[in-house]
């Protein structure tokens, strides 16, 4: 296991989720981001980014928007280089609070190189960070005020408050980082529908520690090994035993395999509520 240690079993193994799927999730949280180059100052890009997050709560099987969605529009400007061409005052007058500097010095005082592609990537990264910030803000608000089970698209470790909240269930659909290798990885990839891996404790750098496990939502036979596979995160403070809690949350997630989140291409791993949040933001932030 990579950056992880077993929290349930000494060695990672496959476990059949006990009990029948039960829908208990009350809300779904997701965010979206969109960015586009709106101009160039010399060789340097000006990027317009929109990031947003929303909670779709479920009442009597119908989804509706909880509270107000958070939407943020920013213009991401590499100020360190642009100021040579445009006066700061003019930029501030034109962009006001939307102005966001993508060349803020690092802790060591260095600023990014004046490479247009690099600056473009930094702008996109900044939009992504803003989106994550909005998601966490909403998640914290939900956990503080409602405290009912909420499925969050992605990990929950970026916020200490959320990572410690028993109502938050993070569902990671992408597997760029796998928390298993060797035999453990083989076990994860061989999980069958309705099976989960042993719970592990993960603490990536800069994020809070959470408990996590892999769960196979759909039968992957004849498909790639990651088909229907998600990684679940929950807080480490749980009153029940880890196994019982992991099974309970797994049952909740298995219950969300209907209705299908199609036509989203990630429908094998995506809950319909998460798709609903994305669709809501796509419709309202265009």
């Amino acid at each position: 296991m990579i950056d992880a240690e077993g929290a349930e079993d000494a060695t990672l193994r496959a476990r059949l989720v006990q009990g029948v799927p039960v829908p208990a999730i009350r809300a779904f949280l997701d965010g979206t981001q969109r960015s586009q180059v709106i101009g160039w100052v010399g060789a340097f890009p000006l990027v317009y980014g929109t990031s947003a997050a929303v909670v779709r709560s479920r009442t009597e099987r119908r989804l509706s928007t909880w509270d107000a969605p958070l939407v943020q529009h920013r213009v991401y400007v590499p100020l360190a280089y642009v100021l040579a061409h445009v006066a700061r005052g003019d930029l501030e007058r034109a962009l006001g609070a939307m102005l966001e500097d993508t060349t803020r010095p690092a802790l060591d005082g260095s600023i990014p190189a004046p490479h247009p592609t690099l600056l473009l990537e930094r702008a996109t990264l900044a939009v992504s960070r803003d989106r994550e910030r909005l998601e966490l803000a909403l998640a914290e608000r939900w956990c503080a005020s409602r405290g009912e089970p909420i499925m969050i698209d992605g990990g929950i470790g970026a916020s200490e408050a959320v990572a410690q909240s028993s109502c938050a269930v993070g569902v990671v659909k992408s597997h760029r980082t796998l928390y298993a290798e060797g035999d453990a990885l083989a076990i994860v990839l061989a999980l069958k529908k309705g099976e989960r891996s042993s719970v592990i404790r993960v603490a990536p750098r800069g994020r809070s520690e959470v408990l996590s496990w892999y769960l196979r939502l759909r039968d992957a036979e004849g498909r790639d090994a990651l088909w229907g596979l998600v990684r679940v995160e929950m807080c480490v403070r749980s009153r029940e035993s880890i196994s019982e809690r992991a099974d309970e949350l797994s049952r909740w997630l298995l219950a969300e395999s209907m209705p299908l989140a199609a036509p989203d291409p990630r429908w094998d791993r995506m809950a319909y509520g998460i798709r609903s949040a994305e669709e809501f933001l796509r419709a309202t932030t265009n």
Partner: protein
Amino acid sequence: MTAPLGLVVATERTPNTPHQFQFWTAIDSPVGIGTIVRVDGRQPVDGHIPHAYGIVTEGFSYTDLASPLFDVLGHDGDPGQSAFAPTERAEVRLYSAAVLRHVPEEPLQPVPMGEVSLATEADVAIALRMDGYLRDDANTGIPIGLYRSGGMDSAIYLDAEFLVGPEAAHLNITGVSGLATKTSAVEWLMATLFAHFPKSKGSVAAVCFNVKGPDLCFLDQPAELEETDRAMYETLGVPCAPFQNVRYFAPFKADNVSLNTLRSNEELLGNVQPLTWGLKEVLQFAEVLLNRDDVDAKADALIDFIKERVLDREFEDRVLREKHRVRSFADLEGWFRDLLSGLEDQGSEHWRTHHVATIRKVRNRLSNISTRCAGLVTNDGHTSDLPWGDFADRAVYVVDVALAEEDAQDLIFARVVSKLREHLEKRDLGVSHVVVFVDELNKYAPADGPETYVRKMLLDIAERGRYLGLVLFSAQQFRSQVHRRVVGNAGTALYGRMDGDELATPGYAVLSAATRTKLATLSKGQLMVRHPHFTQPIFVSFPRPAVMRGRDGVERFPQAADVPRDVGVLRQLRRFDPSLTLAWVQDVIGLHEDEDVLRALHATLAHAPDNVGAYFKSQFRKIIRATPAPAPARTPLRVLPDDDPYAI
């Protein structure tokens, strides 16, 4: 103003136009096909916020699924699993609406983006342009029913000037049989017309042809109504009561004493009058009964000659043995017999340019009429007719031809309508407007087939009647099979539940698929209404008529059985004098020929004298009862001696 229930939505692919727009609503909104909605624009035009009124003509519903296959996969092919889905899929309710009216009407622009709300009662009046004829100072509204939506009832009014004339006129009802649509609707319409036709517009009466069953036979008898019906009557301001002034007319059966109608129960005979015509009345409409094969130009000329020169005149000719005054079919037969006999005696084949063969042919055809129309046409020339010149305001005159032969039906229709037209032209009918109701228009004015006299008359009413105050209310099962000019001239059209095949005909192509579907599933008491003021068809509910249904009527008042001549005569006379008895009638008519009895009966009915019995009796010539002659005294040829020894 009601809370918004939808929002107008337009895209490049489905833009709004001045006559159509789309809007979406919540899943549980009370919008449906036929709902009237109001759109409030957001941006003022020429200083005015534009409003548009529309009626929903189509509805769409879809989810975020790109393909049904995803749903199948999502449920693992098992529909039963849908119950386990914790979330309902997002669903859209999208509606198309046709514009009823823009306010302001100029400049005419596409429907603006804006909130959509259910039309209030006031909105409905504006949307349907009823505000133009429901003014306090000039109210010509005739309530047709209630528009219902979102728990609100709005009375829908037709404009009397476009229903009865002179702006437009006539009404046509289409609907499948057996759902009480057509007859019920026309009964309700007559009730509401009589209740609301403005006095300032004149007077109105109705002449209804009962062409099938007992449909219109009990218009003066009350129905058993439900509370909801009574409430509708109250809302629409129409008395919940049967017609107060109804008169029935029916020909006799072939026996000439029993009325040929399902309304022959003795309890109801008080306002039932025989419909009988003599030669004079029939000859004017010989064309109705004689087809082109019967009457060529030569025969036509002779018939004209008889009408102009012979009928009801002293007529003498050197060929004839005696003077003739032809007033009846019997007289006419005598005239023909005399004429043909005279020609035979003279060995002549021509008389006044008419060939003897033509004379024989016309004799044959005309004589045949009294046989074909037995019960309607009298041999003795007696006439019992509608009260021409004495029609009463808000009265219904039902001419029951349901049991009459087809020829007789045609003759009755042609003559009654012609007389109505004639009197309305002269303004001496007694009322200024007459509604003529004809059912089974498929039969009387078919779209194809030979040109008949009846069809010509219907076309004439449809095209010119409104100038005279002669209004046609017609009904049929298949509108597509009726002559286009008859239905096309009907300013107002009502549609009950329709047959799917009929809805597939081109005449209904202007309706949306959803509207056609709604028409195919309308329940009793619902109609779709087209009226000149309404730019789109409107759905309304109307109450059950306050008159007894035909089938209830025949159960409660069974048809009188065929009776002997004396009983038939008694029934007719007792309408005027209930004290008459069968024994008295038998005593009066016992020795007389049928012909004499009928003549006496017809004369009595025609004069309706104060002393019916005496008048009836006076019509018979005195017949001295024969007394047997006393037997002649027998005289023996020979008296035998008492003591004749050979007598044994």
